[in-house]
């Protein structure tokens, strides 16, 4: 193994890791937003919204994320959507994560005992108040861990945007392989940096989960 080379390229990988982190954070924010809206749609009392929510989830989960990114980035201009690679990456991955998060959030909400809803409604609370003060606080605790799993998957999925040439970790590794012919070293650095990002995120999720349980 060429440790010397690894040391020399490491600062550039750190910069790329920063891009991966920013990409992950933005994707997670957009994903959570889509997940909340998606879950609200799927649980709506309006059939049309339920249909839209279900269609969103099944289209996204039924196709490869890479194809979704390609459609957005390469196909977008054809239908008048001009995005640079980073924007396409965030939006594509965010919409993708949102579909999985929709199911996570919905799953946590429908797990709450029907008796809770009945108790809230019989004291006179409205549907919205029941959701806000009784169902969501309980569902929130249940969804932290599975959302953590979604976020773990989303971080790993950011590697896909290398294919539309966003200069993040995977793309950077590929670029240095082109000039150094040392794929083992380059992918090793990238892999270790991914692991650190994922480990720290996992710890943060576990901490949140513990905190939610204590309260």
């Amino acid at each position, binding site marked *: 193994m060429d440790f010397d080379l690894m040391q020399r390229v490491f600062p550039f990988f750190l910069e790329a890791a920063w891009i991966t982190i920013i990409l992950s954070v933005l994707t997670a924010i957009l994903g959570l937003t889509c997940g909340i809206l998606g879950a609200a749609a799927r649980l709506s*009392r309006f059939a049309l919204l339920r249909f839209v929510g279900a269609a969103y989830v099944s289209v996204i989960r039924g196709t490869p994320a890479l194809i979704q990114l390609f459609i957005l980035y390469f196909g977008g201009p054809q239908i008048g959507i001009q995005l640079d690679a980073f924007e396409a990456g965030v939006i594509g991955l965010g919409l993708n994560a949102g579909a999985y998060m929709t199911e996570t959030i919905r799953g946590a909400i429908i797990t709450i*005992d029907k*008796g*809770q809803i*009945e*108790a*809230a*409604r*019989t*004291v*006179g*609370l*409205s*549907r919205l*108040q029941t959701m806000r*003060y*009784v169902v969501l*606080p*309980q569902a929130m*605790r249940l969804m932290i861990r599975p959302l953590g799993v979604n976020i773990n998957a989303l971080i790993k999925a950011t590697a896909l945007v290398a294919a539309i040439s966003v200069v993040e970790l995977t793309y950077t590794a590929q670029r240095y392989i082109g000039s150094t012919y040392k794929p083992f070293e380059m992918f090793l650095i990238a892999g270790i940096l991914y692991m650190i990002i994922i480990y720290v995120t996992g710890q943060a999720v576990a901490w949140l989960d513990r905190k939610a349980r204590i*309260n």
Partner: protein
Amino acid sequence: MTDQKPFIDIRHAQKSFGTLEVLKDINLQVQKGQIVAIIGPSGSGKSTLLRAINDLDPLTGGEVWLEDKRINKTLPHSQYEKHINLVRQEIGMVFQHFNLFPHLKVRENVTLAPKMLKGLSGTEANKLAEEQLEKVGMLERIDYYPSQLSGGQKQRVAIARALAMNPKVMLFDEATSALDPELVEEVNLVMKKLAQEHMTMIIVTHEMSFAEAVCDKVLFMDQGVVVEEGPPEVIFRNPKNDRTKEFLRKHLAGQNA
């Protein structure tokens, strides 16, 4: 007393779940301050009838009235929601499995609805919670979470939660059925206290001696119909109907076994 206008009036209540007819033309009048027990075998429709009163299980036919208000009205969605939320504030309900809010302390379980619906301030709400919990003997557990309470204590808190909305009527659906035998009495005592305060109550129960002690009227239901109704001393001591006799005989045999 009997020709007084009923406080709760259930007329020709009919309820089907799909093709299964669960309530068949039920009529029930309850006067203000009256305590009515509903007894009958499991699956006879007792819960469904009780839950029709606050429209938790809306009837498929018939009418439910509280004083001069029709409860089970057909209205556009948002109007219905407004109407039913107001009606439900006047009708307290206690469930077999308590259904306390596990993420809230005892205090907040009691104050949630009054705060949201009656605009009580923090201090007013606390005072209310203390009063209601005192009444059910749970004041010293005001800062506990439901998971830290016994079943009997949970049920007493659930009663306090319902009373905090100052309801005109209380509905009890097998309030003591999920409790260990030694915890039943503490809940019964709270209900007896409410009876002494002339709370109007409809109680679905399997406890015949309790029903006999506190109720003014007993309904025996079987397969979706009221088979027999009358004062407790008649229903329990001298029932006319064979199905009532059979039910009580089996029930007593079960209890002594």
